Protein backbone atom coordinates (compact mmCIF):
# COMPACT_ATOMS: atom_id res chain seq x y z
CA UNK A 1 0.00 0.00 0.00
CA UNK A 2 2.53 2.56 -1.11
CA UNK A 3 0.29 5.57 -1.30
CA UNK A 4 1.12 9.18 -1.51
CA UNK A 5 -2.34 10.52 -2.12
CA UNK A 6 -2.55 14.25 -2.25
CA UNK A 7 -6.14 14.16 -1.09
CA UNK A 8 -5.01 12.40 2.04
CA UNK A 9 -2.44 15.08 2.72
CA UNK A 10 -5.06 17.73 2.11
CA UNK A 11 -7.43 16.26 4.66
CA UNK A 12 -4.73 15.88 7.25
CA UNK A 13 -3.16 19.26 6.58
CA UNK A 14 -5.42 21.17 8.90
CA UNK A 15 -5.04 18.74 11.76
CA UNK A 16 -1.33 18.49 11.11
CA UNK A 17 -0.77 22.20 11.42
CA UNK A 18 -2.94 22.24 14.52
CA UNK A 19 -0.89 19.50 16.06
CA UNK A 20 2.27 21.34 15.09
CA UNK A 21 1.03 24.46 16.82
CA UNK A 22 -0.21 22.76 19.94
CA UNK A 23 2.91 20.69 20.51
CA UNK A 24 5.04 23.78 20.86
CA UNK A 25 7.75 21.78 22.56
CA UNK A 26 10.14 20.58 19.91
CA UNK A 27 10.49 16.93 18.96
CA UNK A 28 12.50 14.53 21.00
CA UNK A 29 15.84 15.73 19.62
CA UNK A 30 17.81 17.06 22.57
CA UNK A 31 19.42 20.40 21.88
CA UNK A 32 23.04 19.47 22.29
CA UNK A 33 25.46 22.34 22.45
CA UNK A 34 28.54 20.25 21.92
CA UNK A 35 29.29 17.34 19.62
CA UNK A 36 29.76 15.03 22.60
CA UNK A 37 26.24 13.60 22.39
CA UNK A 38 24.64 12.85 19.02
CA UNK A 39 21.35 14.52 18.23
CA UNK A 40 18.66 11.86 18.09
CA UNK A 41 16.87 12.15 14.79
CA UNK A 42 13.97 10.12 13.44
CA UNK A 43 13.54 9.86 9.69
CA UNK A 44 10.38 8.58 8.03
CA UNK A 45 11.28 6.39 5.08
CA UNK A 46 9.67 3.79 2.84
CA UNK A 47 11.24 0.32 2.82
CA UNK A 48 12.29 0.46 -0.83
CA UNK A 49 15.57 0.55 -2.78
CA UNK A 50 15.57 4.32 -3.02
CA UNK A 51 16.54 4.88 0.60
CA UNK A 52 19.55 2.54 0.70
CA UNK A 53 21.99 5.49 1.03
CA UNK A 54 20.56 6.70 4.35
CA UNK A 55 20.76 3.18 5.84
CA UNK A 56 24.27 2.80 4.46
CA UNK A 57 25.24 6.22 5.79
CA UNK A 58 24.00 5.27 9.23
CA UNK A 59 25.79 1.93 9.26
CA UNK A 60 29.02 3.45 7.90
CA UNK A 61 29.02 6.02 10.69
CA UNK A 62 28.60 8.98 8.34
CA UNK A 63 25.71 10.42 10.34
CA UNK A 64 27.51 9.81 13.61
CA UNK A 65 30.43 11.79 12.23
CA UNK A 66 28.03 14.70 11.78
CA UNK A 67 26.69 14.33 15.31
CA UNK A 68 23.45 12.61 14.35
CA UNK A 69 22.05 9.39 15.76
CA UNK A 70 19.59 8.13 13.17
CA UNK A 71 16.44 6.13 13.76
CA UNK A 72 14.56 5.04 10.68
CA UNK A 73 10.80 4.71 10.87
CA UNK A 74 9.37 2.72 8.01
CA UNK A 75 6.09 4.22 6.95
CA UNK A 76 3.75 3.19 4.19
CA UNK A 77 4.25 6.27 2.05
CA UNK A 78 4.25 10.04 1.87
CA UNK A 79 0.68 10.11 3.15
CA UNK A 80 1.93 8.93 6.53
CA UNK A 81 5.33 10.64 6.42
CA UNK A 82 4.39 14.23 5.52
CA UNK A 83 1.97 14.79 8.43
CA UNK A 84 4.41 13.12 10.85
CA UNK A 85 7.23 15.44 9.77
CA UNK A 86 4.98 18.52 9.94
CA UNK A 87 3.81 17.65 13.44
CA UNK A 88 7.38 16.99 14.55
CA UNK A 89 7.12 13.26 15.23
CA UNK A 90 9.81 12.75 12.58
CA UNK A 91 12.52 15.33 12.08
CA UNK A 92 13.02 14.38 8.44
CA UNK A 93 11.15 12.40 5.84
CA UNK A 94 11.49 10.86 2.41
CA UNK A 95 8.87 11.53 -0.24
CA UNK A 96 8.53 11.68 -4.00
CA UNK A 97 8.84 15.04 -5.70
CA UNK A 98 5.25 15.27 -6.94
CA UNK A 99 3.84 14.58 -3.46
CA UNK A 100 6.05 17.34 -2.10
CA UNK A 101 4.96 19.75 -4.86
CA UNK A 102 1.31 18.96 -4.09
CA UNK A 103 1.84 19.41 -0.36
CA UNK A 104 3.65 22.70 -0.96
CA UNK A 105 0.81 23.94 -3.18
CA UNK A 106 -1.49 23.39 -0.19
CA UNK A 107 0.89 25.43 1.95
CA UNK A 108 2.07 22.49 4.04
CA UNK A 109 5.09 23.91 5.90
CA UNK A 110 7.86 21.68 4.54
CA UNK A 111 11.22 22.21 2.89
CA UNK A 112 13.47 19.86 0.95
CA UNK A 113 16.90 19.42 2.53
CA UNK A 114 18.67 16.73 0.47
CA UNK A 115 18.41 14.76 -2.71
CA UNK A 116 16.70 11.38 -2.64
CA UNK A 117 17.23 9.45 -5.84
CA UNK A 118 17.18 9.93 -9.59
CA UNK A 119 16.58 8.12 -12.84
CA UNK A 120 19.57 6.18 -14.11
CA UNK A 121 19.27 8.08 -17.38
CA UNK A 122 19.01 4.89 -19.40
CA UNK A 123 15.56 4.38 -20.95
CA UNK A 124 16.15 0.64 -21.16
CA UNK A 125 17.72 0.13 -17.72
CA UNK A 126 16.01 2.38 -15.21
CA UNK A 127 14.67 1.46 -11.76
CA UNK A 128 11.11 2.37 -12.74
CA UNK A 129 9.57 1.39 -16.05
CA UNK A 130 6.41 0.93 -18.10
CA UNK A 131 5.59 -2.63 -19.15
CA UNK A 132 3.03 -4.20 -21.47
CA UNK A 133 2.07 -7.81 -22.14
CA UNK A 134 -0.03 -7.48 -25.29
CA UNK A 135 2.30 -7.66 -28.34
CA UNK A 136 -0.07 -5.34 -30.23
CA UNK A 137 0.96 -2.48 -27.98
CA UNK A 138 4.19 -1.51 -29.68
CA UNK A 139 4.86 1.98 -28.44
CA UNK A 140 3.55 4.26 -25.69
CA UNK A 141 1.06 6.06 -27.94
CA UNK A 142 -0.79 2.75 -28.33
CA UNK A 143 -1.83 3.13 -24.69
CA UNK A 144 -4.42 5.76 -25.69
CA UNK A 145 -7.78 4.36 -24.59
CA UNK A 146 -6.09 1.60 -22.60
CA UNK A 147 -5.93 0.90 -18.88
CA UNK A 148 -2.64 1.60 -17.10
CA UNK A 149 -1.88 0.76 -13.48
CA UNK A 150 -0.43 3.52 -11.30
CA UNK A 151 0.42 3.20 -7.60
CA UNK A 152 -1.35 6.49 -6.86
CA UNK A 153 -3.64 8.57 -9.02
CA UNK A 154 -2.51 12.12 -9.72
CA UNK A 155 1.06 11.58 -8.64
CA UNK A 156 4.51 10.92 -10.01
CA UNK A 157 3.80 7.59 -11.70
CA UNK A 158 0.77 8.55 -13.77
CA UNK A 159 2.40 11.90 -14.57
CA UNK A 160 5.43 9.98 -15.87
CA UNK A 161 3.23 7.64 -17.94
CA UNK A 162 1.33 10.59 -19.42
CA UNK A 163 4.62 12.30 -20.29
CA UNK A 164 5.87 9.10 -21.96
CA UNK A 165 2.67 8.78 -24.02
CA UNK A 166 2.71 12.47 -24.99
CA UNK A 167 6.39 12.27 -25.97
CA UNK A 168 5.47 9.43 -28.33
CA UNK A 169 2.78 11.56 -29.94
CA UNK A 170 -0.26 10.11 -28.13
CA UNK A 171 -3.06 11.99 -26.41
CA UNK A 172 -2.12 11.59 -22.74
CA UNK A 173 -5.56 12.70 -21.55
CA UNK A 174 -7.09 9.59 -23.15
CA UNK A 175 -5.07 7.10 -21.10
CA UNK A 176 -7.16 5.50 -18.34
CA UNK A 177 -5.50 4.94 -15.00
CA UNK A 178 -6.27 2.38 -12.36
CA UNK A 179 -4.89 2.68 -8.84
CA UNK A 180 -2.99 -0.44 -7.79
CA UNK A 181 -0.19 -0.95 -5.29
CA UNK A 182 3.11 -1.93 -6.93
CA UNK A 183 2.97 -5.51 -5.58
CA UNK A 184 -0.47 -6.03 -7.18
CA UNK A 185 0.44 -4.76 -10.63
CA UNK A 186 2.07 -7.86 -12.13
CA UNK A 187 -0.87 -10.12 -11.13
CA UNK A 188 -3.28 -7.56 -12.65
CA UNK A 189 -1.35 -7.47 -15.94
CA UNK A 190 -1.13 -11.25 -15.92
CA UNK A 191 -4.89 -11.54 -15.47
CA UNK A 192 -5.52 -8.96 -18.18
CA UNK A 193 -7.23 -6.51 -15.84
CA UNK A 194 -4.92 -3.75 -17.05
CA UNK A 195 -3.05 -3.24 -20.32
CA UNK A 196 0.11 -1.73 -18.91
CA UNK A 197 1.83 -1.30 -15.56
CA UNK A 198 4.45 1.12 -14.30
CA UNK A 199 6.56 -0.66 -11.71
CA UNK A 200 9.68 0.10 -9.74
CA UNK A 201 12.29 -2.32 -8.42
CA UNK A 202 12.10 -5.09 -7.21
CA UNK A 203 8.91 -5.52 -9.26
CA UNK A 204 10.65 -4.24 -12.38
CA UNK A 205 13.04 -7.19 -12.36
CA UNK A 206 10.10 -9.52 -11.87
CA UNK A 207 8.26 -7.94 -14.83
CA UNK A 208 11.38 -8.34 -16.99
CA UNK A 209 11.71 -11.96 -15.91
CA UNK A 210 8.17 -12.55 -17.15
CA UNK A 211 9.31 -11.48 -20.60
CA UNK A 212 7.02 -8.45 -20.72
CA UNK A 213 8.03 -5.63 -23.01
CA UNK A 214 9.28 -2.36 -21.57
CA UNK A 215 8.08 0.69 -23.50
CA UNK A 216 9.13 3.51 -21.21
CA UNK A 217 10.88 4.57 -18.02
CA UNK A 218 11.51 7.50 -15.70
CA UNK A 219 14.41 8.44 -17.98
CA UNK A 220 11.92 9.29 -20.74
CA UNK A 221 10.71 12.25 -18.70
CA UNK A 222 14.23 13.48 -18.04
CA UNK A 223 17.52 11.56 -18.02
CA UNK A 224 18.34 13.10 -14.63
CA UNK A 225 14.77 12.95 -13.32
CA UNK A 226 14.75 13.60 -9.59
CA UNK A 227 12.20 11.13 -8.21
CA UNK A 228 12.30 11.77 -4.47
CA UNK A 229 13.76 14.09 -1.85
CA UNK A 230 14.44 14.21 1.87
CA UNK A 231 12.58 17.03 3.56
CA UNK A 232 11.93 18.61 6.94
CA UNK A 233 9.42 20.99 8.46
CA UNK A 234 9.95 24.72 8.13
CA UNK A 235 9.64 24.79 11.91
CA UNK A 236 12.72 22.61 12.45
CA UNK A 237 14.46 24.56 9.70
CA UNK A 238 14.15 27.81 11.68
CA UNK A 239 14.60 26.28 15.13
CA UNK A 240 17.61 24.06 14.44
CA UNK A 241 19.31 25.26 11.29
CA UNK A 242 22.56 23.67 12.46
CA UNK A 243 21.00 20.22 12.81
CA UNK A 244 19.36 20.53 9.38
CA UNK A 245 22.69 21.53 7.85
CA UNK A 246 24.46 18.56 9.44
CA UNK A 247 21.73 16.24 8.16
CA UNK A 248 22.11 17.68 4.65
CA UNK A 249 25.90 17.25 4.78
CA UNK A 250 25.66 13.69 6.08
CA UNK A 251 23.03 12.84 3.47
CA UNK A 252 25.21 14.19 0.66
CA UNK A 253 28.10 12.11 1.87
CA UNK A 254 25.90 9.02 2.17
CA UNK A 255 24.50 9.48 -1.34
CA UNK A 256 28.02 9.80 -2.73
CA UNK A 257 29.13 6.72 -0.80
CA UNK A 258 26.20 4.63 -2.05
CA UNK A 259 26.76 5.84 -5.61
CA UNK A 260 30.42 4.85 -5.40
CA UNK A 261 29.79 1.50 -3.68
CA UNK A 262 26.81 -0.14 -5.40
CA UNK A 263 27.71 -3.56 -4.02
CA UNK A 264 27.51 -2.26 -0.47
CA UNK A 265 24.22 -0.55 -1.31
CA UNK A 266 22.87 -3.88 -2.60
CA UNK A 267 24.03 -5.66 0.54
CA UNK A 268 22.38 -2.94 2.65
CA UNK A 269 19.03 -3.74 1.03
CA UNK A 270 18.90 -7.07 2.78
CA UNK A 271 19.01 -5.30 6.15
CA UNK A 272 15.73 -3.39 5.79
CA UNK A 273 13.82 -5.22 3.05
CA UNK A 274 13.20 -8.95 2.66
CA UNK A 275 14.72 -9.10 -0.82
CA UNK A 276 17.03 -12.10 -0.95
CA UNK A 277 20.75 -11.42 -1.26
CA UNK A 278 20.90 -13.27 -4.61
CA UNK A 279 18.05 -11.22 -6.02
CA UNK A 280 19.65 -7.90 -5.07
CA UNK A 281 22.48 -8.56 -7.57
CA UNK A 282 20.20 -8.14 -10.58
CA UNK A 283 18.22 -5.14 -9.40
CA UNK A 284 18.66 -1.85 -11.22
CA UNK A 285 19.63 0.70 -8.62
CA UNK A 286 18.59 4.33 -8.95
CA UNK A 287 21.21 7.02 -9.33
CA UNK A 288 22.12 8.83 -6.12
CA UNK A 289 23.63 12.24 -6.96
CA UNK A 290 24.44 14.44 -4.00
CA UNK A 291 22.82 17.54 -5.44
CA UNK A 292 19.17 18.17 -6.19
CA UNK A 293 18.52 18.34 -9.94
CA UNK A 294 16.38 21.50 -10.10
CA UNK A 295 15.89 21.36 -13.87
CA UNK A 296 14.05 18.04 -13.73
CA UNK A 297 11.95 19.14 -10.76
CA UNK A 298 10.98 22.24 -12.71
CA UNK A 299 10.00 19.97 -15.58
CA UNK A 300 7.89 17.77 -13.25
CA UNK A 301 6.18 20.85 -11.83
CA UNK A 302 5.35 21.91 -15.39
CA UNK A 303 3.94 18.47 -16.17
CA UNK A 304 1.91 18.55 -12.95
CA UNK A 305 0.28 21.77 -14.20
CA UNK A 306 -0.23 20.37 -17.73
CA UNK A 307 -2.00 17.29 -16.37
CA UNK A 308 -4.09 19.19 -13.86
CA UNK A 309 -2.46 18.07 -10.60
CA UNK A 310 -1.62 21.67 -9.85
CA UNK A 311 -3.50 24.78 -10.92
CA UNK A 312 -0.35 26.87 -11.23
CA UNK A 313 3.34 26.21 -11.18
CA UNK A 314 4.60 26.56 -7.62
CA UNK A 315 7.52 28.77 -6.68
CA UNK A 316 10.20 26.12 -6.39
CA UNK A 317 12.44 28.31 -4.24
CA UNK A 318 10.01 27.83 -1.36
CA UNK A 319 10.35 24.04 -1.55
CA UNK A 320 13.96 23.56 -2.58
CA UNK A 321 16.90 24.65 -0.44
Amino acid at each position, binding site marked *: MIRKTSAFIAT*TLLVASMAACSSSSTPNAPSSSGPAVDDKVTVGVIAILDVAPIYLGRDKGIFHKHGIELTM*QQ*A*QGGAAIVPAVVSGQYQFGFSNVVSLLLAKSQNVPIKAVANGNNSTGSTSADFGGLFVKDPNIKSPKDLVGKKVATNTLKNIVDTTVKAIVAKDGGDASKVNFVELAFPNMAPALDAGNVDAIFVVEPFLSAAKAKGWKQIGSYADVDPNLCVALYFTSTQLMTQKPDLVKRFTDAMKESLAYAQAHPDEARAELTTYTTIKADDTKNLILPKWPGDIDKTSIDKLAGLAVTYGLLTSKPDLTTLLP
Partner: protein
Amino acid sequence: MTQAIAKGRTGAPPVLLGAAGLVAFVGLFEVLPRVGILPEAYFPTASTIGRTMATLVTESSFWVSFGETVQTWALGLAIAVAAGIVLGVVIGTVPVLRAATASTIEFLRPIPSVALIPLVIVLVGTDMESTLILVVYASFWQMLIQVLYGVADVDPVARETALSYRLGPWDRIRYLVFPTALPYALTGVRLAASVALILAVTGELVIGSPGLGHDIETANSSNSIPRVYALIVVTGLIGLAANLVARAVERYALAWHPSVRADVPA
Protein backbone atom coordinates in the same frame (compact mmCIF):
# COMPACT_ATOMS: atom_id res chain seq x y z
CA MET B 1 -25.37 -37.08 25.21
CA THR B 2 -24.96 -34.10 22.91
CA GLN B 3 -21.84 -35.70 21.57
CA ALA B 4 -23.75 -38.87 20.90
CA ILE B 5 -26.28 -36.92 18.90
CA ALA B 6 -23.55 -35.17 16.93
CA LYS B 7 -21.90 -38.49 16.28
CA GLY B 8 -25.14 -40.08 15.19
CA ARG B 9 -25.83 -37.28 12.75
CA THR B 10 -22.43 -37.07 11.10
CA GLY B 11 -20.88 -40.43 11.66
CA ALA B 12 -17.58 -39.07 13.00
CA PRO B 13 -16.46 -37.06 16.02
CA PRO B 14 -16.38 -33.30 15.31
CA VAL B 15 -12.65 -33.07 16.08
CA LEU B 16 -11.81 -35.58 13.36
CA LEU B 17 -14.12 -33.85 10.91
CA GLY B 18 -12.49 -30.53 11.66
CA ALA B 19 -9.04 -32.01 11.12
CA ALA B 20 -10.17 -33.57 7.85
CA GLY B 21 -11.50 -30.21 6.69
CA LEU B 22 -8.21 -28.54 7.50
CA VAL B 23 -6.19 -31.22 5.72
CA ALA B 24 -8.42 -30.90 2.66
CA PHE B 25 -7.98 -27.13 2.66
CA VAL B 26 -4.19 -27.36 2.95
CA GLY B 27 -4.16 -30.08 0.28
CA LEU B 28 -6.19 -27.87 -2.04
CA PHE B 29 -3.69 -25.05 -1.54
CA GLU B 30 -0.92 -27.51 -2.39
CA VAL B 31 -2.54 -28.91 -5.52
CA LEU B 32 -4.22 -25.90 -7.14
CA PRO B 33 -0.97 -23.91 -7.63
CA ARG B 34 0.87 -27.06 -8.71
CA VAL B 35 -1.52 -27.92 -11.50
CA GLY B 36 -1.65 -24.28 -12.53
CA ILE B 37 -5.28 -23.50 -11.70
CA LEU B 38 -3.90 -20.79 -9.43
CA PRO B 39 -0.74 -19.06 -10.72
CA GLU B 40 2.06 -20.34 -8.52
CA ALA B 41 3.93 -17.04 -8.71
CA TYR B 42 1.19 -15.34 -6.69
CA PHE B 43 -0.23 -18.35 -4.83
CA PRO B 44 2.68 -20.32 -3.39
CA THR B 45 1.94 -23.95 -2.54
CA ALA B 46 1.13 -24.92 1.03
CA SER B 47 4.51 -26.64 1.31
CA THR B 48 6.34 -23.48 0.19
CA ILE B 49 4.42 -21.47 2.78
CA GLY B 50 5.25 -24.12 5.38
CA ARG B 51 8.96 -24.00 4.53
CA THR B 52 8.92 -20.20 4.68
CA MET B 53 7.28 -20.38 8.10
CA ALA B 54 9.96 -22.79 9.23
CA THR B 55 12.69 -20.29 8.35
CA LEU B 56 10.61 -17.44 9.74
CA VAL B 57 10.51 -18.91 13.23
CA THR B 58 14.30 -19.10 13.30
CA GLU B 59 14.62 -15.33 12.79
CA SER B 60 14.84 -13.24 15.94
CA SER B 61 13.32 -10.24 14.16
CA PHE B 62 10.19 -12.29 13.52
CA TRP B 63 9.76 -12.97 17.22
CA VAL B 64 10.27 -9.29 17.98
CA SER B 65 7.44 -8.43 15.57
CA PHE B 66 5.35 -11.28 16.92
CA GLY B 67 5.80 -9.93 20.45
CA GLU B 68 4.91 -6.42 19.32
CA THR B 69 1.68 -7.52 17.68
CA VAL B 70 0.65 -9.69 20.61
CA GLN B 71 1.53 -6.90 23.04
CA THR B 72 -0.52 -4.32 21.13
CA TRP B 73 -3.40 -6.77 20.94
CA ALA B 74 -3.31 -7.84 24.59
CA LEU B 75 -2.81 -4.34 25.96
CA GLY B 76 -5.54 -2.89 23.75
CA LEU B 77 -7.91 -5.68 24.67
CA ALA B 78 -7.21 -5.32 28.39
CA ILE B 79 -7.85 -1.57 28.30
CA ALA B 80 -11.03 -2.02 26.24
CA VAL B 81 -12.36 -4.80 28.50
CA ALA B 82 -11.66 -2.90 31.71
CA ALA B 83 -13.12 0.34 30.38
CA GLY B 84 -16.09 -1.48 28.86
CA ILE B 85 -16.96 -3.25 32.10
CA VAL B 86 -16.61 -0.22 34.35
CA LEU B 87 -18.45 2.18 32.05
CA GLY B 88 -20.97 -0.46 31.05
CA VAL B 89 -21.94 -1.21 34.65
CA VAL B 90 -22.04 2.47 35.63
CA ILE B 91 -24.04 3.59 32.60
CA GLY B 92 -26.20 0.50 32.64
CA THR B 93 -27.24 0.77 36.27
CA VAL B 94 -28.00 4.50 36.20
CA PRO B 95 -31.04 5.02 33.93
CA VAL B 96 -30.38 8.76 33.54
CA LEU B 97 -26.86 8.09 32.30
CA ARG B 98 -28.12 5.39 29.97
CA ALA B 99 -30.63 7.77 28.41
CA ALA B 100 -28.13 10.61 28.20
CA THR B 101 -25.38 8.58 26.53
CA ALA B 102 -27.48 6.37 24.24
CA SER B 103 -27.43 8.68 21.22
CA THR B 104 -23.73 9.49 21.63
CA ILE B 105 -22.81 5.82 21.85
CA GLU B 106 -24.92 5.00 18.81
CA PHE B 107 -23.16 7.79 16.93
CA LEU B 108 -19.59 6.89 17.92
CA ARG B 109 -19.93 3.12 17.78
CA PRO B 110 -20.42 2.71 14.02
CA ILE B 111 -17.37 4.85 13.14
CA PRO B 112 -14.95 2.34 11.66
CA SER B 113 -11.71 2.44 13.59
CA VAL B 114 -9.70 2.54 10.37
CA ALA B 115 -11.33 5.85 9.49
CA LEU B 116 -9.44 7.31 12.43
CA ILE B 117 -6.06 6.35 10.98
CA PRO B 118 -5.26 9.78 9.47
CA LEU B 119 -6.19 11.40 12.76
CA VAL B 120 -4.05 9.15 14.96
CA ILE B 121 -1.04 9.49 12.63
CA VAL B 122 -1.19 13.24 13.02
CA LEU B 123 -1.97 13.32 16.73
CA VAL B 124 0.05 10.37 18.01
CA GLY B 125 2.46 9.45 15.24
CA THR B 126 3.29 6.11 13.70
CA ASP B 127 4.39 4.24 16.82
CA MET B 128 2.65 1.45 18.63
CA GLU B 129 0.45 3.95 20.52
CA SER B 130 -1.45 4.94 17.39
CA THR B 131 -2.30 1.32 16.58
CA LEU B 132 -3.19 0.81 20.23
CA ILE B 133 -5.74 3.61 20.03
CA LEU B 134 -7.39 1.94 17.05
CA VAL B 135 -7.46 -1.39 18.87
CA VAL B 136 -8.98 0.11 22.02
CA TYR B 137 -11.51 2.16 20.07
CA ALA B 138 -12.76 -0.78 18.05
CA SER B 139 -12.91 -3.38 20.80
CA PHE B 140 -14.24 -1.04 23.50
CA TRP B 141 -17.66 -0.77 21.82
CA GLN B 142 -18.00 -4.54 21.53
CA MET B 143 -17.43 -4.77 25.24
CA LEU B 144 -19.51 -1.79 26.29
CA ILE B 145 -22.59 -2.81 24.30
CA GLN B 146 -22.49 -6.36 25.64
CA VAL B 147 -22.14 -5.18 29.23
CA LEU B 148 -24.95 -2.63 28.75
CA TYR B 149 -27.28 -5.33 27.45
CA GLY B 150 -26.17 -7.71 30.17
CA VAL B 151 -26.90 -5.18 32.89
CA ALA B 152 -30.28 -4.39 31.34
CA ASP B 153 -31.17 -8.08 31.25
CA VAL B 154 -31.50 -8.45 35.04
CA ASP B 155 -34.70 -10.37 35.78
CA PRO B 156 -37.28 -7.85 37.09
CA VAL B 157 -38.58 -10.35 39.66
CA ALA B 158 -35.05 -10.91 40.94
CA ARG B 159 -34.52 -7.17 41.10
CA GLU B 160 -37.73 -6.63 43.07
CA THR B 161 -36.76 -9.47 45.37
CA ALA B 162 -33.33 -7.92 45.94
CA LEU B 163 -34.98 -4.61 46.75
CA SER B 164 -37.43 -6.28 49.13
CA TYR B 165 -34.52 -7.89 50.92
CA ARG B 166 -32.86 -4.46 51.01
CA LEU B 167 -29.68 -5.50 49.29
CA GLY B 168 -27.24 -2.57 49.12
CA PRO B 169 -25.85 -1.26 45.83
CA TRP B 170 -22.69 -3.37 46.14
CA ASP B 171 -24.59 -6.57 46.93
CA ARG B 172 -26.95 -5.91 44.05
CA ILE B 173 -23.98 -5.64 41.69
CA ARG B 174 -22.40 -8.76 43.17
CA TYR B 175 -25.45 -11.05 43.32
CA LEU B 176 -27.76 -9.59 40.70
CA VAL B 177 -25.94 -7.68 37.99
CA PHE B 178 -22.72 -9.68 37.91
CA PRO B 179 -24.22 -13.14 37.28
CA THR B 180 -26.65 -11.74 34.72
CA ALA B 181 -24.10 -9.68 32.84
CA LEU B 182 -21.21 -12.18 32.98
CA PRO B 183 -22.27 -14.31 29.99
CA TYR B 184 -22.78 -11.13 27.96
CA ALA B 185 -19.44 -9.73 29.09
CA LEU B 186 -17.58 -12.92 28.19
CA THR B 187 -19.16 -12.93 24.75
CA GLY B 188 -18.01 -9.32 24.55
CA VAL B 189 -14.46 -10.35 25.43
CA ARG B 190 -14.47 -13.00 22.73
CA LEU B 191 -15.79 -10.59 20.10
CA ALA B 192 -13.42 -7.84 21.26
CA ALA B 193 -10.46 -10.24 21.12
CA SER B 194 -10.91 -10.93 17.42
CA VAL B 195 -11.72 -7.32 16.57
CA ALA B 196 -8.63 -6.23 18.53
CA LEU B 197 -6.42 -8.54 16.49
CA ILE B 198 -7.89 -7.31 13.22
CA LEU B 199 -7.19 -3.72 14.20
CA ALA B 200 -3.71 -4.49 15.54
CA VAL B 201 -2.66 -5.99 12.22
CA THR B 202 -4.51 -3.36 10.19
CA GLY B 203 -2.85 -0.56 12.12
CA GLU B 204 0.59 -2.05 11.61
CA LEU B 205 -0.15 -2.63 7.95
CA VAL B 206 -1.48 0.83 7.19
CA ILE B 207 0.25 3.07 9.72
CA GLY B 208 3.51 1.15 9.69
CA SER B 209 3.83 0.78 13.44
CA PRO B 210 6.11 -2.16 14.26
CA GLY B 211 4.65 -5.67 14.29
CA LEU B 212 3.58 -8.50 12.01
CA GLY B 213 1.34 -6.23 9.91
CA HIS B 214 4.31 -4.03 9.14
CA ASP B 215 6.38 -7.09 8.26
CA ILE B 216 3.67 -8.21 5.83
CA GLU B 217 3.85 -4.84 4.13
CA THR B 218 7.66 -4.91 3.98
CA ALA B 219 7.64 -8.43 2.54
CA ASN B 220 5.02 -7.33 0.03
CA SER B 221 7.08 -4.30 -1.05
CA SER B 222 10.08 -6.61 -1.42
CA ASN B 223 8.12 -8.99 -3.69
CA SER B 224 8.67 -11.81 -1.14
CA ILE B 225 5.33 -13.46 -1.81
CA PRO B 226 5.76 -16.73 0.18
CA ARG B 227 6.81 -14.64 3.17
CA VAL B 228 3.64 -12.56 2.91
CA TYR B 229 1.54 -15.73 3.02
CA ALA B 230 3.58 -17.19 5.88
CA LEU B 231 3.06 -14.04 7.96
CA ILE B 232 -0.66 -14.01 7.18
CA VAL B 233 -0.91 -17.61 8.38
CA VAL B 234 0.87 -16.59 11.60
CA THR B 235 -1.66 -13.80 12.24
CA GLY B 236 -4.43 -16.31 11.60
CA LEU B 237 -2.91 -18.68 14.15
CA ILE B 238 -2.80 -15.89 16.72
CA GLY B 239 -6.49 -15.25 16.08
CA LEU B 240 -7.25 -18.93 16.44
CA ALA B 241 -5.32 -19.14 19.71
CA ALA B 242 -7.06 -16.03 21.03
CA ASN B 243 -10.46 -17.48 20.25
CA LEU B 244 -9.63 -20.82 21.84
CA VAL B 245 -8.42 -19.13 25.00
CA ALA B 246 -11.50 -16.92 25.15
CA ARG B 247 -13.78 -19.92 24.73
CA ALA B 248 -11.95 -21.86 27.42
CA VAL B 249 -12.29 -18.93 29.82
CA GLU B 250 -15.97 -18.71 28.93
CA ARG B 251 -16.54 -22.39 29.65
CA TYR B 252 -14.68 -22.17 32.93
CA ALA B 253 -16.30 -18.99 34.21
CA LEU B 254 -19.78 -19.94 33.08
CA ALA B 255 -19.69 -23.57 34.18
CA TRP B 256 -22.84 -22.88 36.20
CA HIS B 257 -24.72 -21.23 33.35
CA PRO B 258 -27.46 -23.10 31.44
CA SER B 259 -25.85 -22.20 28.10
CA VAL B 260 -22.73 -24.14 29.07
CA ARG B 261 -24.21 -26.86 31.29
CA ALA B 262 -25.19 -29.92 29.38
CA ASP B 263 -27.56 -31.36 31.99
CA VAL B 264 -30.19 -28.61 31.85
CA PRO B 265 -31.98 -27.28 28.77
CA ALA B 266 -30.65 -23.87 27.82
